[in-house]
Structure formats: structure tokens, C-alpha cells
């Protein structure tokens, strides 16, 4: 399979090369990426769509393995052999490339106005003045539930926290299903699917996140401790031996139909659609009282930037403007359900579960994970510590207050917010 793909690619490049010579005007743009999984989508859908509208520009998608991407890209950029277009990791990794002068400033790129400030925040300097990557996709947190199980037990989708815990109680009392599929063994589930999932409702999304970065709020404040208090209450609803339950275990528990609710990230949609034999639905993190403003974690995950040393900067900018357009967003979001376009213009998607997730953007306010921007640059690393402490809180080995205090002490030891 791989060799076939490789031959096809080689053949493709050789043909592209010869036609390039024949026309003598064609420009070839190379895309660096770690998303090898998306190769066919780029080759069959995205690139032909762009090339049809832009004669004279050829695009080649050349991914490398995810684990090698950062190192390989660094070496290629240093040697001057990197592609014209560079797929951007969020936050500090790309910011470092921009500071070294490897990525070009794209603040004035036509099409950037299609994105909200939150969407652009992952690829901006700390002061927000220059943007250097076009946001491509984000992932949204929420809860996926087993619709068949809910119907069988006569349960209604919860919108408030009280309803949420009432539903969990009913599932537990019935005993057929494990109320919630989540483990603490791999630590990040507790932090990412737990704390960062339900947290924004407490700290009011972007308001709280910005205040934390400015130093106006502390992790020991009520709004930041309360999500831990809720997490601590999850413990009785998790499966037997959840302390040693890994992330794949949780996925399997849910897709095998043994658990009713799965604290999720939208990236699961593709896998769950192929594995689960039952109907699924999704609901956003429940709010305190009916009618409260809801906040969701709509985390920026992937973007695309311009190699500052590219010989074809004009053509590459044309391509990036297209990446920023609704056309690209529609094709991309439909090919990869669960990776949502960050474009402000609404995208029509076919997958019902993905539609459900993305519909929350209309009624809730979006934010990103609180620990990702700026706050995870020092030692101890706030993101890693959040993993450990979230698991501790659910395991019951740390109280919510103790966990929050540890995180804040660690952050204080190196982070001095700008006054």
C-alpha cells in the first residue's frame, strides 16, 4: 500500500515536473505537514480544487511522521530545503519559528479577516499584533452519549449540572451501563476531557483565561477550583478500577456499548462512527442554571504558515488566502468530521454528530484550553502539572483546594504577569 502510494507520488511529481518544464511558467508549492493521515484528502479533494481555480500553480502535499515532524522541519528550515508552506503546531512551537524568522508575517494576508481573535490566538505574538499562520481547524470538547441507552432508560439530555448528576445517578441505579467512560491512568484524559471540558463554564471562557494570563485571577480562585470540585464528584460514576483504565480502554468501553456517557473531544467522531453499533448524540458541558451563558473549549489545533525563505511567496500567499476561504473550510470539515473549520462563515457539514458539536458555537462562547498560551513555558510546566493534579483530584488523593494551590505555587515560581 505504502509503496504503491509512494510510486504514485513519485510518478505524480515527475509528471508535474515535466509539465512544469513544458509550460515553463508553472510554480510548484510544497506543503510540510505531520498529518500523513490526510494525504488522500489533500491529493484527491483539496489540491485539485485549488489548482482548478489557479492555473499555473501546482501544489504537492509532503507529510512526515508526527513524531519526527518538529525535528525534521527544524533541520530542513536550517538547511533551506523546507517546503513553501508549513503546517503549524499551535502556540509556542510555531511562535519560536516565527521569532527565528522562519515564518513570514501574515497579518495583512487577504482572508485573515475571516477569523475571530480566539481562532487566531494560537498563532500570534504575545501582544497579538502579528499573526503568522492561517488557522485551519479546531477540536471542540463536550460529552458524547449512547442514544440507545438514553432511550432505554428514558433519560433526557441534561442541560444543567443538577440534571447531569441526576442522569448519572439514574444510570448507576439501573446498573446496565457504566455511567461515564473515563480513566485516570493516562492522566491527560482527566485534564483534557475533564478539567478543560467543564472548566470554561466556571471561569467564563476567554474572560477567565485572559485574566489568568494578566495575573488578575489565580488558579486558587473560586472559579478555577470549582471545576475540580465537580471532577471530584465524578469518581463514583466511573467504571470499576478506573485508576488503571487507559485512554484506549475508555474508547473501547464506550464503543462496545458498555458505558453511557463519554467525556469527549470532537476528534473521536471519525473513529466512533466506524466502531460504535448504536446511535450517538452529544451535549455541551452543562451549565449551572438553565439559561446561563454556556462556554465551550474550541481548541485551535492546526494552522498553515508561509516559509519566510520561500521563492514563490506570492503564489504561496494566494494558496493561503484560499485556505482562509469558506471553500477550503467546507471541503476540509466534511472530509475530517471532528476537525472543525475556524472560519467565521458557517460551514455545511454532513455528519450529524459533527453538526451537533459545531452548533454549540452558535449558542455558546468559544475559548481555548487555559494552559496552552504563555502559561506552559516554564518549569514546572503548568499543562503537565494539570494532568497530574486532575488525575489526583478524581482519584481522591488530593482535595480540589490542595490541587489548585500546588498549580498556583508552581506557576508563581516562574511566571510574572506583565503589569
Amino acid at each position, binding site marked *: 500500500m505504502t509503496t504503491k502510494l509512494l510510486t504514485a507520488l513519485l510518478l505524480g511529481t515527475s509528471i508535474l515536473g515535466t509539465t512544469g518544464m513544458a509550460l515553463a511558467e508553472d510554480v510548484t508549492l510544497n506543503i510540510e505537514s505531520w498529518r500523513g493521515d490526510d494525504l488522500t484528502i489533500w491529493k484527491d479533494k483539496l489540491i485539485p480544487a485549488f489548482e482548478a481555480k489557479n492555473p499555473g500553480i501546482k501544489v504537492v502535499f509532503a507529510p512526515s511522521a508526527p513524531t519526527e515532524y518538529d525535528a525534521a522541519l527544524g533541520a530542513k528550515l536550517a538547511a533551506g530545503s523546507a517546503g513553501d508552506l508549513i503546517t503549524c503546531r499551535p502556540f509556542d512551537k510555531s511562535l519560536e519559528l516565527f521569532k527565528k524568522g522562519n515564518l513570514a508575517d501574515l497579518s495583512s494576508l487577504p482572508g485573515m479577516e475571516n477569523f475571530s481573535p480566539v481562532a487566531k490566538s494560537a498563532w500570534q505574538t504575545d501582544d497579538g499584533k502579528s499573526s503568522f499562520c492561517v488557522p485551519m481547524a479546531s477540536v471542540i470538547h463536550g460529552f458524547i452519549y449512547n442514544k440507545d441507552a438514553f432511550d432505554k432508560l428514558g433519560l433526557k439530555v441534561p442541560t444543567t449540572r443538577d440534571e447531569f448528576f441526576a442522569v448519572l445517578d439514574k444510570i448507576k441505579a439501573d446498573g446496565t451501563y457504566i455511567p461515564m467512560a473515563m480513566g485516570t491512568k493516562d492522566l491527560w484524559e482527566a485534564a483534557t476531557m475533564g478539567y478543560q471540558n467543564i472548566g470554561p463554564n466556571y471561569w467564563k471562557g476567554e474572560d477567565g483565561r485572559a485574566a489568568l494570563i494578566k495575573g488578575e485571577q489565580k488558579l486558587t480562585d473560586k472559579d478555577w477550583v470549582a471545576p475540580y470540585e465537580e471532577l471530584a464528584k465524578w469518581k463514583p460514576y466511573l467504571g470499576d*478500577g478506573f485508576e488503571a483504565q487507559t485512554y484506549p480502554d475508555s474508547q473501547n468501553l464506550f464503543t462496545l456499548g458498555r458505558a453511557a456517557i463519554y467525556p469527549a473531544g470532537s476528534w473521536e467522531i471519525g473513529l466512533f462512527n466506524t466502531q460504535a453499533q448504536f446511535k450517538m448524540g452529544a451535549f455541551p458541558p452543562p451549565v449551572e442554571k438553565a439559561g446561563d451563558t454556556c462556554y465551550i473549549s474550541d481548541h485551535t489545533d492546526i494552522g498553515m504558515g508561509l516559509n519566510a525563505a520561500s521563492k514563490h511567496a506570492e503564489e504561496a500567499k494566494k494558496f493561503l488566502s484560499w485556505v482562509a476561504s469558506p471553500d477550503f473550510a467546507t471541503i476540509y470539515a466534511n472530509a475530517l468530521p471532528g476537525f472543525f473549520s475556524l472560519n467565521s462563515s458557517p460551514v455545511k457539514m454532513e455528519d450529524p454528530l459533527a453538526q451537533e458539536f459545531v452548533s454549540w458555537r452558535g449558542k455558546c462562547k468559544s475559548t481555548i484550553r487555559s494552559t496552552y498560551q504563555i502559561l506552559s513555558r516554564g*518549569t514546572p510546566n503548568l499543562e503537565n502539572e494539570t494532568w497530574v493534579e486532575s488525575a*489526583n483530584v478524581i482519584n481522591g488523593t488530593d482535595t480540589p483546594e490542595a490541587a489548585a494551590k500546588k498549580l498556583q505555587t508552581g506557576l508563581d515560581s516562574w511566571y510574572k504577569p506583565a503589569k
Partner: protein
Amino acid sequence: MATELMAAETRAKRPIRWHVGVFLAPAVLVYTAFMILPLFGTLQLSLFRNIEQSQVFVGLGNFRTLFGDPNWSVNFWNALRNNVWFFIIHMLVQNPIGVLLAALLSSPRLRFAAFYRTAIFVPTILSFVIVGFAWKLILSPLWGVAPHLLDFVGLKSLFTPWLGKEQYALTALSLVSVWQFVGIPMMLIYAALLSIPDEVIEAAECDGVTGMAQFWKIKLPLILPSIGIISILTFVGNFNAFDLIYTAQGALAGPNYSTDILGTFLYRAFFGFQLQVGDPNMGAAIATIMFLIILAGVCVYLFLVQTRLRRYQF
């Protein structure tokens, strides 16, 4: 005059033996290139710090950070404590069981000895990844065989998710490691037992020393040097351990760093993890400390223990 003559004579008698150097060269060159140079490279790296994209000499600054800054020192002492416990379990469980198995295997009345020997040694040659993954599955509360087997004998209440509990995880993993490596002490002791001459055993039997007494009074003193070697191998292996913890618990060595040993601590510092950016200089400082700990342990053994061990010439 006379001494000069004698010196000239010895020179003439003993030409420079080039072949010694030639034969040693491949090993020395390879060892220098792949072990000694990197070792000094690590030591050098630990004395520098990356300040604004350039390496600046900071003397022992990284070590001061490692021991003085609570953000580093708490994790370091935790890792060291865990590592010592990891070693203690190996010394208390792996080596006595290894000696016992060897003694059983060398008994002439045991049938299928070759089969047992092979079966017990096989885990040693398995990859850490396989061992870590297999035991994670065996001990899994969801699909593992451990809860079912315990249920079968009516002891289900004894089961807890060992790998997920702070108080048990490290001990559980130490025992997995013991399971994997018990073959090595067994084989070394087995070889030592086989090398005891029959005359010694026969003489003991003539003197009426048989059975258990024979093992304690005759065989054990004769295999003590081997036990010493095994202890030092275990020490070096344990303080360099990393793979099993990494495959079973991940780089954050959860829950709550309870399985964090020096190897995983070094890995996180050197290569970084998730949003944590790697710091090769601090990593090198930790690696240097690990090197010194192992060096100290080996020196204690060489100068204090080995010189006192009595050797018997047959």
C-alpha cells in the same frame, strides 16, 4: 655502566609488542567513540546553559538549580527515593529467587531441568515494550486475566487496580521487572553451582554434611562472588532503568509521579514532554548525577566488598 648495559639488554630482549596495540585498537576505538566521548560530552553539556540561543558556561549552576530549586529538587529526590525502592525490591525478591531457582535446577534429581531453565529465561530476552504492554493488559481491571483468576479462587476482594494506585504502582512494576529479569541471576548462579568440583561435594558428604546444611555451609560460600557480581549488575541496571516505566506508565510516571525514577525524570528534562520544552543542559546535569551515583555504588562494591570476598582455588 653496568645498569646501562642491562637496560640495553632488556630493550633488546623485549621489543615493542605492536600486535598488542593492534589487537586492542578496534575495541578501544569503538568504545572511545561510542562511550567515552559521549560521556565527556554529557559532562561538558551539564556545565552550560542556553541563554538567548547561545550556550553560556555557568559552572555548577545547573547542579545548584537541581538541588536548590524546589521545582527540580522535589522531583529529583522523589525519583531517587523511588529508584532506591525499585532496587531494594530487586535485591530482596529477584536475587534470592534467582539463587533458589538455580539451586533447584542444579539438583540432579530434577526432571525437565532444561525446559524450566529455558522457560524462566525467556522473559529476559523479550522487549520491554512487550513486557510492559502484556502486564498492563494482565493487570487491567477491565479486560485483564488477573481479576478473573483471583475471582476463580474466591479472592476477588484482593484485586485493586494496582498500576493506578499511588501506594502500589511502583512495587507492582518492580515485581514485573523482577519477573522479567529473574533469569539472569538464575543463570549466573546456576553456572557457579555447576563449577563447584565434585570432590568438594563428595568430601562434604564424607564428613556428613548433606542436604540443606550442604547448601548453606559448602555451596553458598563458594557462590558468594557470583552473588556479588549479580548485586552490582542489578544496581547498575536499576539505576539506569527507564523503559518499563515509560511503556507502562508514560513519561509522566503517574499516578502523581509515584513511579518516577531517575531515567524517566531525565527523559522529561532532556527531551521535554507535551508542552514542556526539553532542556538538554538540565538533562545532562541529571545524567551526570546518575553517572556519579552508579560510579559511587560500583566503587563501594569494588573496594569494600569484593576485596573481602574469599576466593577458593581448586
